[in-house]
């Protein structure tokens, strides 16, 4: 089912999302991948604040290619989410409500999603050119020295994603595969 939502996310909207929904996100989201997560974890351990308040927000696991002149961003598709699994539960417990990536997550992440009423979306891996066109602006807000891995604030419009893990604990990767398996 196609749905339109705004980011930051609202709790009642998250509750209505179900694994398998095709969702268009409009609003503000933040990027962070491996190196940025490592730094955010170090900041939390040192009692420092994060580059942005994660409460209600969505993190997009993405490191773009450089923007050509006149464009906000280069190619901008999702990276594999499992590399962030070590960091995700703590961020979810701090109020992070959504993650966009691709690929499987651990049981710990799934538990944290359910515990906190959050959601894990997949964007289509390898559709970076198409996805870049749904990003209207991009601004590096932290860790500029990390280049592609810096934390960016993005304004997105009708950014297409699919709900993989919903707040009820459903996991599309498990259920959809069973539907088509013929082993």
């Amino acid at each position, binding site marked *: 089912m196609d749905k339109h939502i705004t980011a930051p996310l609202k709790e009642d909207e998250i509750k209505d999302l179900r694994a*398998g929904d*095709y969702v268009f996100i409009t609003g503000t989201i933040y990027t962070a991948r491996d*190196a940025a997560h490592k730094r955010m974890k170090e900041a939390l351990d040192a009692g420092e604040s994060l580059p942005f308040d994660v409460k209600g927000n969505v993190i997009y696991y*993405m*490191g*773009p*290619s*450089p*923007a*050509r002149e006149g*464009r906000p961003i*280069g*190619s*901008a*598709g999702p*990276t*594999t989410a*499992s590399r962030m699994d070590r960091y995700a539960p703590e961020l979810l417990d701090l109020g992070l409500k959504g993650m966009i990536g*691709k*690929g*499987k997550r651990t049981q710990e992440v799934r538990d944290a999603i359910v515990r906190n009423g959050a959601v894990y979306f*997949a964007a*289509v*891996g*390898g*559709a*970076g*050119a*198409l*996805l*870049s*066109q749904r990003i209207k602006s991009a601004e590096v807000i932290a860790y500029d020295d*990390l*280049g*592609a891995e810096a934390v960016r604030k993005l304004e997105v419009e009708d950014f*297409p994603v*699919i709900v*993989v893990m919903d707040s009820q604990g459903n996991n*599309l*990767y498990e*259920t*959809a*595969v*069973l*539907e*088509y*398996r*013929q*082993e």
Partner: protein
Amino acid sequence: MRIVEVAKITENIKEMCIEANHFLSRDMEECFQRAVEKEESPLGRQVLGQLQENLEIAGRDMIPICQDTGMAVVFLEVGQDVHFEGGSVEDAVNEGVRQGYTEGFLRKSVVKDPLIRENTRDNTPAVIHYSLVPGDEVKITVAPKGFGSENMSRIFMLKPADGIEGVKEAILTAVREAGPNACPPMVVGVGIGGTFEKCAFLAKKALTRDVGVRSEIPYVKEMEEELLEKINRLGIGPGGLGGRITAMAVNINTYPTHIAGLPVAVNICCHVNRHAVRTI
């Protein structure tokens, strides 16, 4: 003997890095079309549709197909009658990668040391595989490799008694475990035989073979076809969201091996199976 200026290598590799990251080869485009026709899952068809549109946008607006523009893998097949002039071949290759990734707005994804992890900021060095062949030409293949799928690749040191069934099971295991992480529909490159490192090389090389061309060895061709069918019965589907099209091709290369061994390498590539080939 033929003299080749290394500057020519640089110039070609620069262009090929940009070309490979914006345009897929024709065999891959045709493969996509067949995949769209065969896919039964509505979500799977939606994903494949997005990927086709993505390819159009990439070529039209010069935005890389995928933001992971890869680590540059370069195969240099050098005719033994070639003499290079103007500097080191390795430096020339890396200069081509540097220029291509910088001037082509490609992502710099290489770190200088695997544990210290400081970005080299120009995507160098490349991974270069040299081979000597008869003749006086240089065949260059540039295959930028993304790591979403590279990370899901596997090596199995099987026993001879595991036989062909063991090999098939190893390949299916690698694909099953890769699942949605490797950005399916995938291309599966397989190396069977040789030594530990040789089978990995064979698997990587297999990914550069046209996806519409089957092995010339009858039993290997049969295995490629059978495995493609079996992989597409796993249900993983486009984007891992369920469906019939999990892989677009299985390319297998073989090599003689030791009486005690049966090495199998499975190098998985996402649907952005990039390679540019030129002969100079």
